């Protein structure tokens, strides 16, 4: 194996090899190479990549070969001697081999005369045979052509050459092939074979020379694509012997391509039978698609499994794969990291658990001890009982003996203990000897009992007295005074041991013992119970419960020390627990100051402040939740860091006084910001807010118009509302609906900006504009309005002037609207078909300052009302109202020209505004407008440059910029508002800050029609979307307000309510 | 005044040029030069004629195979061909130099050649 290429593998395995040919593109389009490679893949063992065949400049064979290799197709890189000298060629050979090319076909190359650069200098430093020698030397001897050693990797290449059996002198051709093989060729690909007879003869001669045993011979075949191609090859390709038979077959064929493939397949079949032919080289020039078919039909499609095809460089897909792999690796690393972190976390968790277990085991030890003590106690109880029984028995016996006679000594008498040292003299009358003896033995028994039970003296004394008393009773003597019957302490039920509470055992025991000791003191049972309950709660961790119990106990008996102590304990414990709970997570890794470790890049002071703020906020949150203890703790912590923090102090004060923040109806867990706001706001406002909240449950359909109106007023209103704000009252149309359209003006910003800015110098926040917006006047007489004229961005009153407030024009249709929702039409129900009345209503009832008459009926695609008829309507409207009127055409440039001209003809001098002017009709309409000095609407589709272009065109025509309103085309909210906004903003900025006076016209914003065609304004009232009218009104008002901020100056709107809202907004902002 | 230079051999110009002119057969501004044989003609002479102001130059030699000096007119025609190439290289109309053949003593071809060349010269002048 010389190079281990797939081709070499196939040939050496004895399989009949198939190679293909791939001509690189005459461009840098690697995809073409990949495409061809993919066609050939799987049908050939290797593919020749030609080296600027016929001397036409193409992508280099090395590059294209690598691309093929990356596609999984093994390249046979062709190398000619025409274009490089030995230096360049060896360099490329090294590179090719290094990049995974394993087959090299050595050629002299076509003369440059044939190519597209016949003026070039042919190099021909060597010929193909010398090239073979050179590469063989590099491969086998590790030597460069000059003889210098190749240190490191030598090229590993399976060497090929070409042979033309049909060139002259014929008899020399096999000899020359032998020379090539001697020079180093491992395989041969012949010129295209059509003349099989001649080829067979050639092969015979080759065999005579034994060349076929020294190299693999692949017969070259080509499917003639057409008769023309075959003729061309015969005539113009030297050494290509296209036989007459082939020409005849093609000329007779119905489908020449099909026949071409058949011819090729036939030739393959025939060359297969020629001894010494090891494979075929299928050259389908610019017809790669034919190769799979040829290979299939020739029965050669079962290619051996490719071996040794390993791209060193990668195709884009494999790069992607590599990237994916790398990503995976990173992910794995990341996951390992994560796993490590997780393990660590697990470990620490386990540590905690272990600690817990340790504590738990300690607890259970203690429990066990208690249990043992209890068991022991019960054992002792049993013993006591037994002894008592015995005593009882003895007593009975005694009684019996008493009854029987004094002579009879009870059998137990011997077992009776001697009288104790402190045995009291028998009360009452003198005892008999026997009785004395019995008592003594009783005493002895009790002594024993005392030692067994470990009773203290008082207990013993109590027991003794009890027994004595009993005894005396039995005797009929009652010792006086009788002490209360003591329960044996061991029988006192132990308080239940708190289950999972790792309370210290001492603590748990101590009060119990104390309690037991105090049991004797006559205490109010209630108090005792409460104390016990308190202690129980205390130990079970319910500090609040404990406090409550103790406090109750104290309320009954304020002197009860026990309860007092318990209360103190409980409070302390509560405090401790709270701080522990709060600090545990943070203080685990706390810095000495009790703060989490400060990141290095953060200044210490700042870090502290940060935590002061955080603690204060935590305190406020706790306050809000009513968790005062936590609040106290948080504020205290804050104060510990910054003792002078007023907020923390105030918070602490409030927390200590159990003074929450009054936030009615606010659920716990509300965002702290909201709380802060609420906190900052005066109480009444908060209350009002709450009220409003109550008033506006989202599901509640607004049916009471008054309530709703009121609510809206409230919304607009600020608590410190100006005294008796003038309300714009709009009478409601009869019947249901929004009703009163009353919008109170917005309150104006109280302190001026300069005040609010504080110490910030003016030049920091003020940026005066260098440009100004044109002021355009619409209408005439008293009702004329001007828009524009600003020298600052919209409502930037602190930067410049806004002499004319933006205005609202009510849209009136020239015919009855077809698709308006009821919530809109109801306001104009009485005048919908009558534009003049409609306009009049707008002006008189809804206080319209301007009317925009939409000439929708003129649309040629709609009603196509004649210009004259439309003009008549327009004239009526003009006569009906005295406010400025905008005539807005249907949008068909030609029709609008006709209609608007007709209108101007009728109304003459009265100053109306015409629109829309587009690039299609600005000339005619511009001229008309100019004649009457009308302002015009220049309409462009959401584009800065188009807007400017149209303004320039109009100006060139003679229309002054102060007669132009720009319509930038509108998108309603949710329907592209942002595009409109940004285009308007850019136009405005260009006009104001870049002195682009061609963009300095005011905007007319025809938004009503956009909003009211949105489906949201048409869907009926429902639970999810809420009230239909309110929805539509808000959509229109919001669109208007957004576009006001973008610079809109004349807003064409439909709904009286949204118009009122918009005007209120403008009023409020100015 | 554009001149036309005519070069003839002893055998092709048997009539006095002035007689031809006065007979109105050839234009006045044709200047004749008579050589013993056109075979003696060299390219520089043809070119120099132009340099000296000729608008057109023509050579009249014996008929190719009937030259008095066997190959004189053949040589002349090769010189004329060379001169034509040079005129071409100089962006001139190669038709402004021409070789004509005439039988011994024939005047007619000379007259025709003169008229033809006068016409070519006039055309060339117009074209300028």
């Amino acid at each position: 194996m010389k190079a281990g290429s797939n081709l070499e593998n196939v040939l050496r395995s004895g399989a009949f090899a198939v190679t293909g040919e791939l001509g690189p593109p005459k461009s840098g389009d690697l995809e073409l190479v990949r495409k061809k490679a993919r066609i050939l893949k799987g049908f050939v063992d290797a593919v020749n990549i030609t080296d600027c065949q016929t001397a036409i400049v193409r992508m280099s064979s090395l590059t294209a070969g690598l691309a093929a290799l990356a596609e999984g197709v093994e390249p046979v890189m062709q190398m000619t001697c025409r274009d490089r000298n030995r230096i360049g060629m060896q360099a490329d050979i090294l590179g090719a081999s290094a990049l995974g090319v394993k087959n090299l076909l050595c050629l002299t190359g076509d003369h440059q005369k044939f190519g597209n650069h016949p003026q070039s200098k042919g190099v021909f430093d060597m010929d193909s045979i010398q090239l073979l020698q050179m590469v063989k030397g590099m491969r086998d001897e590790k030597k460069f052509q000059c003889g210098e050693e190749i240190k490191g990797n030598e090229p590993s290449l399976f060497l090929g050459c070409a042979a033309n059996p049909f060139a002259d002198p014929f008899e020399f051709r096999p000899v020359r092939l032998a020379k090539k093989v001697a020079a180093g060729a491992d395989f041969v690909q012949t010129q295209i074979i059509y003349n099989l007879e001649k080829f067979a003869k050639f092969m015979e001669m080759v065999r005579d020379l034994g060349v076929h045993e020294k190299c693999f011979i692949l017969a070259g075949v080509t499917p003639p694509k057409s008769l023309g191609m075959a003729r061309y090859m015969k005539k113009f390709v030297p050494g290509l012997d296209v036989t007459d038979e082939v020409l005849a077959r093609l000329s007779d064929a119905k489908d020449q391509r099909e026949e071409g493939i058949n011819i090729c397949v036939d030739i393959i079949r025939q060359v297969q039978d020629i001894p010494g032919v090891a494979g075929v080289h299928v050259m389908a020039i610019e017809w790669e698609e034919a190769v799979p078919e040829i290979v299939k039909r020739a029965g050669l499609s079962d290619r051996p499994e490719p071996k040794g095809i390993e791209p060193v460089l990668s195709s884009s897909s494999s790069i992607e794969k590599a990237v994916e792999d790398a990503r995976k690796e990173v992910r794995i690393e990341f996951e390992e990291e994560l796993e490590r972190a997780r393990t660590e976390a697990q470990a620490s968790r386990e540590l905690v658990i272990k600690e817990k277990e340790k504590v738990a085991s300690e607890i259970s030890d203690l429990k066990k001890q208690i249990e043992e003590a209890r068991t022991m106690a019960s054992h002792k109880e049993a013993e006591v009982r037994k002894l008592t029984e015995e005593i009882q028995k003895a007593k009975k016996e005694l009684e019996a003996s008493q009854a029987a006679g004094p002579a009879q000594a009870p059998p137990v008498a011997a077992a009776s203990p001697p009288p104790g040292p402190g045995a009291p003299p028998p009360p009452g009358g003198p005892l008999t000897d026997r009785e004395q003896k019995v008592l003594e033995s009783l005493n002895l028994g009790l002594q024993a009992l005392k030692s067994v039970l470990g009773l203290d003296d008082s207990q013993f004394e109590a027991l003794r007295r009890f027994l004595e008393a009993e005894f005396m009773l039995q005797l009929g003597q009652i010792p006086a005074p009788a002490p209360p019957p003591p329960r044996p302490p061991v029988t006192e039920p132990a308080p239940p041991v708190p289950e999972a509470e790792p309370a210290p055992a001492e603590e748990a025991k101590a009060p119990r013992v104390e309690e037991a000791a105090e049991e004797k003191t006559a205490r109010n049972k209630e108090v005792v119970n409460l104390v016990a309950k308190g202690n129980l709660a205390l130990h079970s961790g319910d500090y609040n419960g404990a406090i409550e119990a103790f406090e109750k106990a104290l309320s009954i008996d304020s002197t009860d020390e026990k309860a007092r102590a318990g209360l103190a304990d409980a409070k302390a414990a509560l405090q401790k627990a709270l701080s522990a709970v709060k600090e545990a997570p943070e203080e685990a890794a706390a810095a000495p100051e009790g703060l989490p470790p400060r990141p290095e890049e953060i200044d210490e002071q700042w870090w502290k402040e940060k935590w002061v703020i955080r603690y204060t906020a935590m305190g406020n949150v706790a306050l809000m939740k009513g968790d005062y203890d936590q609040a106290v703790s948080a504020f205290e912590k804050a104060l510990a860091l910054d003792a002078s923090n007023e907020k923390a102090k105030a918070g602490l004060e409030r927390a200590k006084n159990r003074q929450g923040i009054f936030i009615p109806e606010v659920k716990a867990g509300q965002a702290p910001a909201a709380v802060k706001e609420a906190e900052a706001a005066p109480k009444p406002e908060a209350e009002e807010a709450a009220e409003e909240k109550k008033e506006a449950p989202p599901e509640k359909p607004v049916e009471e118009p008054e309530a709703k109106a009121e609510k809206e007023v409230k919304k607009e209103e600020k608590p410190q509302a100006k005294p008796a704000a003038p309300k714009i009252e709009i009478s409601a149309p009869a019947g249901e609906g929004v009703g009163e359209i009353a919008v109170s003006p917005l309150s104006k910003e109280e302190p001026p900006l300069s005040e609010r800015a504080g110490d910030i110098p003016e030049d920091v926040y003020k940026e005066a504009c260098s440009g100004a917006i044109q002021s355009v006047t619409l209408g005439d007489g008293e009702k004329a309005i001007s828009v524009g004229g600003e020298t600052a961005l919209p409502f930037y009153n602190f930067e410049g002037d806004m002499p004319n407030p933006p205005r609202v024009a009510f849209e009136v249709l020239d015919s009855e609207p077809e698709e308006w929702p009821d919530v809109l039409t109801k306001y104009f129900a009485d005048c919908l078909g009558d534009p003049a009345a409609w306009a009049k209503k707008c002006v008189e009832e809804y206080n319209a300052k301007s009317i925009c008459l939409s000439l929708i009926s003129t649309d040629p695609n709609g009603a196509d009302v004649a210009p004259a008829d439309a003009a008549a309507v327009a004239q009526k409207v003009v006569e009906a109202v005295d406010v400025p009127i905008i005539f807005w055409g249907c949008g068909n440039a030609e029709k609008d020209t006709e209609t608007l001209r007709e209108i101007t003809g009728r109304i003459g001098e009265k100053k109306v505004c015409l629109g829309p002017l587009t690039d299609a009709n600005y000339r005619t309409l511009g001229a008309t407008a100019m004649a009457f000095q009308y302002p015009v609407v220049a309409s462009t589709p959401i584009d800065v440059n188009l807007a400017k272009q149209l303004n320039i065109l109009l100006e060139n025509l003679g229309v002054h910029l102060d007669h132009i309103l720009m319509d930038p085309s509108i998108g309603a909210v949710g329907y592209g508002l942002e595009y409109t906004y940004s285009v308007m903003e850019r136009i405005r900025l260009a006009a104001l800050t870049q002195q682009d006076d061609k963009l300095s016209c005011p905007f007319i914003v025809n938004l009503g029609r956009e909003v009211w065609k949105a489906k949201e304004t048409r869907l009926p009232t429902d639970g999810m979307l809420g009230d239909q009218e309110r929805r539509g009104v808000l959509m229109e008002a919001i669109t208007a307000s957004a576009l006001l901020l973008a610079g809109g100056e004349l807003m064409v709107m439909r709904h009286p309510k949204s118009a009122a809202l918009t005007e209120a907004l403008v009023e409020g902002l100015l | 005044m554009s001149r036309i230079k005519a070069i003839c051999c002893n055998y092709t110009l048997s009539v006095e040029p002035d007689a031809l002119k006065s007979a109105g057969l050839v234009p006045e501004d044709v200047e004749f030069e008579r050589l013993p044989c056109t075979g003696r003609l060299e390219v520089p002479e043809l070119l120099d004629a132009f340099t000296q102001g000729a608008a057109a130059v023509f050579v009249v030699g014996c008929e190719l195979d009937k030259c008095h000096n066997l190959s004189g007119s053949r040589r002349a025609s090769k010189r004329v061909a060379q001169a034509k190439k040079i005129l071409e290289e100089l962006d001139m109309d190669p038709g402004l130099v021409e070789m004509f053949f005439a039988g011994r003593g024939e005047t007619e071809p000379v007259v025709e050649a003169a008229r033809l060349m006068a016409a070519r010269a006039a055309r060339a002048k117009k074209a300028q």
Partner: protein
Amino acid sequence: MIIAERKKLGELLEMVKGCRRLLVLGCRGCVAVCSAGGDKEVSVLASAIRLGLSRQGKEIEIEERTLVRQCDPEYIDPLNEDASDFDAVLSMACGVGVNFIADRCGKVNVLPALDTTFYGANLSSGEWKEMCAGCGACVLHLTGGLCPVARCAKSLSNGPCGGSQNGRCEIHPDVSCIWQQIYDKLSGLNRSDEMKNIMPMRDWTSAGHGGPRRRIREDLLP
């Protein structure tokens, strides 16, 4: 012999357009033999330049002269004396002559009137053909005296290539395949077996790729 060919008049007129006095200088060596730069050609060229410039409305004074050779100092050195007052010397010698004048005559502005084309033989009157490339490493003994370097389009050492057909080279039907000729020649000499030998890669240093060449014959040095 060195074969050369006069440059196009347009190119030459451009070269001399600024000259008022011009010396057109012929050579009686190779270029005279190949009728490119001898006395006659000097005369024709001088006339042509006069005509060309006169048509441009320019006047020029042209002197015509022809040297025995322009590649020998003894002929060109006098130019230092009598040619320095010409605005230019338009040499009609091969490139050797132009170079030599340029080398030796510091004050002479020498211009080439000819393109020097190849080393060729005169096949017949008016036809010359390349026979040698001056590669400096003759292999003619191996090729029956026929030069593959000069006469094969690809300078093959081991031809003929697959483009040889009917004795013709594929690049042009007028061009014969020299390797076919070599094969025929060696076959005729019963030396066709020599064609089986692989000719090793050439050393092109002697062909000028090793820099300008020179030759020294010590016994003749002064």
